[in-house]
């Protein structure tokens, strides 16, 4: 088992009133699963993904990740944990505009104390795999949206994560580009056994996954 959420609640205090963003979420994810999260806008999909990715905290409940109790971990250990095992893909790519494609790919490795020569090799490998060697010296603004997201996925993969969290990865792409990214996810999941959790609004994209989770008002339905 990769991770397990038990009775997770998250709320914000607004004028003496608790507004629940997540309500009693229970979720078990096995290694190698490909999960799609769906639900109307504002239903808490991103919030849930952030909680799973440990970028956000929750107020009640328990969360185990690879047999570690995330809810009782200190911030520093938590960040070590996600740094090691989780890769993130965003709707708006979030590549750093000041860095070239190559440098963007290298960036996560900088925080992992990996030697320079090894970093170079990993980056070259990734460029090769995604067939973007020719683009390595370009800056993100010089790429199309599809290409940018390709780099985004490559960046998420470079640290060899067990889990990829993708928040509407194709939200800004046209259907052909979407198709490509989805095919890529499917391949990664099948061939390399990477666990994937994606948020999506599209039934078609959701179908790539092995399981669909529906949210409504912060509650699993």
């Amino acid at each position, binding site marked *: 088992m990769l991770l397990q959420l038990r009775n997770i609640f998250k709320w914000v205090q607004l004028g003496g009133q608790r507004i629940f963003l997540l309500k009693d979420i229970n979720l078990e994810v096995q290694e190698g699963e490909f999960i799609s999260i769906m639900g109307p806008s504002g239903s808490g999909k*991103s919030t849930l993904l*952030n909680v799973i*990715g440990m*970028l*956000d905290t929750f107020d009640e409940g328990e969360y185990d990740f690879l047999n570690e109790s995330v809810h009782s971990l200190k911030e*520093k250990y938590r*960040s*070590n944990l*996600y*740094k*090691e095992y989780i890769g*993130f893909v*965003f709707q*708006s790519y*979030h*590549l*750093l505009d*000041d*860095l070239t494609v190559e*440098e963007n790919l290298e*960036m*996560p490795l*900088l*925080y*992992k104390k990996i030697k320079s020569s090894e970093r170079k090799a990993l980056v070259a490998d990734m460029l090769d795999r995604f067939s973007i060697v020719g683009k390595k010296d370009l800056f993100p603004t010089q790429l199309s949206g599809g290409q940018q997201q390709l780099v985004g996925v490559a*960046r998420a993969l470079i*640290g060899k994560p067990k889990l990829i969290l993708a928040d509407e990865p194709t939200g800004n792409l046209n259907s052909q580009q979407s198709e490509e990214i989805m095919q890529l996810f499917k391949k990664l999941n099948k061939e390399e056994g990477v666990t994937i959790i994606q948020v999506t609004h599209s039934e078609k994209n959701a179908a790539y996954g092995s399981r669909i989770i529906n949210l409504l008002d912060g509650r699993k339905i």
Partner: protein
Amino acid sequence: MFRNYLKVAWRNLIRNKSFSVLNIVGLSIGLTVFTLIVLWINFELGFDRFHENQERIYEVNNQYAIEGEIWTWNSTPKAMAPAIKKDYPEVDWVSRYYYDTPFLFSVDEKRIKATGTIVDPDFLHIFSFPLVQGNIESVLSDVNSVVITETFAKKIFGDKDPIGELVKIDNADSFKVTGVLKDLPDNTDFTFEFLVPWDYLIQKDWDDNNWGNNSVATYVKLKENVDFNNFSANIKTLRKNYDKDSPDMETLLYPFSRTYLYSEFENGKEIGGRIELIRMFGFIAAIILLIACINFMNLSTARSEKRAKEVGVRKVMGAPKKYLIYQFLGESMLISSIAALLAFVIILLVLPSFSNLVGKELSIDFTSKAFWLSAIGIILFTGMLAGSYPALYLSAFKPSAVLKGTFHKANTLITPRKVLVVVQFSVAIILITATLIITQQLEKVQDRQLGYAKDNLIYTFIEGDIEKNYGALREELLKSGAATSVTKTSSPITESWSNTWGIEWEGKKENDKTIILRLMADDAVVKTLGLELLEGRDIDLQKYPTDSTAVILNETSVALMGFEDPIGEIVNDNGKKWHVIGVVKDFVFNSPFQKIEPLVIEGAKGWFNVVHMKLNEANTTANNLATIERVYKNYNPEYPFNYDFVDGEYAKKFSDQQITSKLAGLFTLLTILISCLGLFGLASYMAENRIKEVGIRKVLGASVGTIVTLLSKDFLKLVGISILIAIPVSWYYMSNWLEDFAFRITISWWVFVIAGVLTLVIALVTVSFQAVKAARANPVKSLRTE
């Protein structure tokens, strides 16, 4: 990792050119000012600090309670040094220092005037003025020996070896050069070009054993391991055995190392001196650097929206907060290094002018380790100071918040940034008011009614044959038509050389020890100096031969002495009876910044050093001077004709205040400039961040005016708060500053109005430049950018 930081930092610099330029220019101005002031302070603090064993060197001072107030002064009787030498074995060396005196040196046909003094042979043992030629033990042992500086030696002897050469001093006595001193460094208060042994003074019969005549400086160097506290308690009562008139006057040892910076006493306590000026500008240096750093902080945090995404992404990729802090600090270090480099170039360019302005030869010693260490220290410190807040602020962003895109903090001025802007502008306003007040004070004093006519008035010192030929000289000067009036006086009208509490008059209170200034004048003093006669008449020896014991009082003296009808009253001074023949309006004799003291002008029975002449206004000054020189050459052929203009000498009294005023003005200007650079940057970010809001408002029909108001309002509010903070602070400090001057302005309210309005206008122009730009942008374009 480091290379990566540097790369990102550099790209950031290049990408955001205007941000970088604002930051670098602001910081480098701050660094330049800071460094210049520190160089100056360093020079001042090093003044006369190069003497070996300086902690054992003391200046002998006197302390005496007069009218319940303790007075401290540093001139001593000539008999003091021998007494110390005889009675106090703790003292290793002791030397007197006669005042700096101009002497005429002649070798063959060459005549050169030089300033030097008469000292005891111990002098060279006390102070570290090394001899390049001659033996320290014997150079001053012979009456007719003279020690000269290298430059002076070159001037009289050229390349000839000066040792053993003969020179004639003051056309009378022949001296043998026994030693050559290394030129005095720039950072010493001593200015002599030659030294003559004290025995010469005795030979000339200028020595005296009068303990009431405090006229020379006395320096001592104690033996090693002397317990200073014990010894100073011991020497305190020195006068008991010698001074019949004031046996209770205390003898005080004042550390020589403090004489330059401190040595101002009030009621027996050291109250500072030059050090206050240095502290003030040190404070200003720190403040200006701080203001430059504040710019950096403000601009960096204002840019936070742009950097927020980067922080979020890096954190999601696993960057620990620590690394992000390093990264941002690294960026500010890079900027401070570039700024330092630019500052360095500016400093090299402006150092000569700045030296000129403060009147000190400042220089940078590139070979000194201390210089490089402090340069690196300043870069690191500035980088840290400027970068710390942005680094902590930026690195604290939560990735889940910034990446969601709901992050819009930068739209408004956040509180710390507001505080920083308020600090900047408060300082600017304080400096503006300070500059205005200093300038006003200076102008008031410069416009002060002097009480004498300083124009077309010159003076010369009595030297050579002038004393002997004075009668004929005067006669001829008047006859030549170059001078309309001539008088001999004891000192120049711009300097008071003599004072006493020993003057007696009828009705003087028993222990009234009010100090009265003395001026002596032989004839026509009122006419020559242009004094304003209130009662009685001028001294006129021709008509009234008894005027040799006449005395003229100033108003303050009359009030002190309580004379109802002063003319004809008698005052006793120096064992002579002087009869009052006139009263003059108070005139400025000492410092124009202080109140006027009681003064007596005694007649021809006094002693004389100076000749004052009123030039004939019907001729050109050049003609007058040429004529006078001819007359002087006639009666004093051996001496070059030297003269000083009274108005020029008077102007010198303002040099210190003028420097203060100029520096204050300069620093104010730079502070405003730096603050405006920051405000400009801040306003441009604000405008940029609100470009969408502005677009929507315009589409909805808002006018340019309302939008400019909207964008400028926040800033102007801050400037308003700054004004409220600055006024009381400035008022408090400037009232304190003015306390030092007896003759001073009262602070007027409009100074604050001017400073406030000026700052508001400058801020408004700076901010609205950006606001107008934003408001006039095409809304369709700006809305499409999202």
